[in-house]
């Protein structure tokens, strides 16, 4: 179990690094699960379970550093338990949820520490100590990654046998319920995505997308293709026009932006 714990610890480091460095999206559950699968020596399982995990966490995304649920850790631990205790994907999804919540808690603690460092960074600059400034920056980046390594390492080392026992105890009716829940949970992901996209004026596009798949059995690639064309049609008339047509009285650019933004979220 030591090697597996090291592998999952390393997966945590890679996922958290690729999430922040360049915002490469390594914390998307699909990728986090793939990375974990590769490190545990079962890449194909990692990829397959990744799809199930992504569907649950699809709507959760980091906006301005705020993560409602740590979907990256959800992806790692979901995959790890699917491989290490051979849990079914629907069970792996359920097991990943507590870790996705633990992740936000741990990150909050780190962020408090980082916040306390802000003053020290400033003091170093006031004292004209650029070397100390650089050193402190390196330390906080290192601590950040080390923290995630320890979380992955300790959880797998200490928790796997308990989780294995738990999974073996689950009766059939609970297993069926978990399968049903795993099918329903993507609805939450979709709803969360709609929060940032929805407005009364744009609502029909959601139903067009739904219908293309539900009625006409379109694939997602086909919908993306049509979506791009439809989006272009919808904005083509407005390209090059000054501000938006419905703002009769002249406003400053910021004002127009703000009011547009507001009815975007309100209606």
């Amino acid at each position, binding site marked *: 179990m030591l090697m597996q714990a090291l592998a999952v610890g390393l997966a945590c480091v890679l996922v958290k690094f690729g999430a922040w460095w360049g915002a490469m999206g390594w914390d998307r559950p699909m990728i986090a699960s793939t990375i974990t699968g590769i490190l545990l020596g079962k890449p194909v399982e990692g990829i397959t379970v990744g*799809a199930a995990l992504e569907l649950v966490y699809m709507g959760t995304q980091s906006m301005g550093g705020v993560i409602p649920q740590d979907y990256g850790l959800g992806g790692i631990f979901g995959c790890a338990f699917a491989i290490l205790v051979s849990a079914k994907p629907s069970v792996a999804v359920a097991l990943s949820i507590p870790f996705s919540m633990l992740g936000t808690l741990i990150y909050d603690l780190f962020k408090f520490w980082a916040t306390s460092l802000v003053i020290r960074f400033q003091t170093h600059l006031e004292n004209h100590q650029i070397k100390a400034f650089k050193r402190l*920056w390196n330390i906080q*980046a290192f601590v950040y990654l080390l923290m995630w390594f320890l979380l992955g390492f300790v959880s797998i080392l200490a928790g796997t046998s308990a989780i294995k026992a738990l999974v073996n105890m689950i009766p059939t009716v*609970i297993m069926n319920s*978990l399968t049903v829940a795993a099918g329903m949970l993507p609805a939450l992901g979709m709803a969360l995505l709609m929060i940032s996209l929805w407005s009364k004026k744009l609502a029909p596009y959601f139903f*067009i997308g739904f219908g293309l798949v*539900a009625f006409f059995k379109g*694939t997602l690639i086909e919908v993306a293709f049509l979506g791009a064309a439809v989006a272009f049609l919808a904005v083509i008339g407005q390209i090059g026009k000054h501000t938006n047509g419905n703002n009769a009285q002249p406003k400053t650019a910021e004002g*127009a*932006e703000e009011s547009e933004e507001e009815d975007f979220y309100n209606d």
Partner: protein
Amino acid sequence: MTETTNTANVPTFLPDQKSEKHFYNSLFWRSQWLMFCTSYTKQQAVTFSWVMMPYLEKIYGKDTDEFYAAMLRHQDFFNTNVAVAPFVFGVVTSMEKENKENGVEAKSINALKSSLMGPLAGIGDSLLANGVRLIATGIAIGFFQQGSWLGPILFMLLLNVPNWGIKWFSGKYGYKLGNTFITDAMKSGTLNLITKAASIVGLMMVGAMSAQYVTFKTVLKIKSASQVVDIQKIFDMILPGLLPLLLVLGCFFYLRKKNKPVRVLLAVVVLAFVLTLIGVTGAAK
């Protein structure tokens, strides 16, 4: 590499094309670290100054008072989308250079930063987090389900080619154009149009994925004397995908009223358990 002298009349920052190219490359790589050391009070401020460090050293000279003044100036609150952040770095670097050579008011540099980060975060998030990510996910997830390597490869390419492309060019044009471009784009409404187009594609993808991936079926069959009525077949005759659609819309309208995703998560799980225990839903396909 020319070192900065104390006299201000020789332009020492990016004197030729080669060093300019070097600067764009350097900015591209350094700005990748922006998210590290995010704090509650100032978000990305510390790392903003960390990214600017070598450029400020070149402009003002190593260990000079002016250098430290500039570093302290950049300790102010900063928060924007990582992909479009190089634009701000580019604009700020060109203004710092201007400040050294001709003396612009240092305050205006900070004012510009705060005016740029909001709209840029909005456009970066809507374009990449909602638009590009949803398209990439929609295209790749089918391959993931089959356990194909095409899944992760396609997802990384579809997400990061636009992401890194925007990063490289936004740094370059930020430095070249200074602050004129973004103000023009805001005035002409281009930013709103991009946001709108991204939202349209995003919503269509969300609708499509709701139909594709939300599974919510009843296994309930009502037995009367002569025949067995399959309730799911009736739902399918009314509208294919009716139950998933209602479930998604239900979650959405609740979330829009009260933004408590964890509560919805628990409610959905509880609902799944209750419905399965009373035999309305089940694992049967």
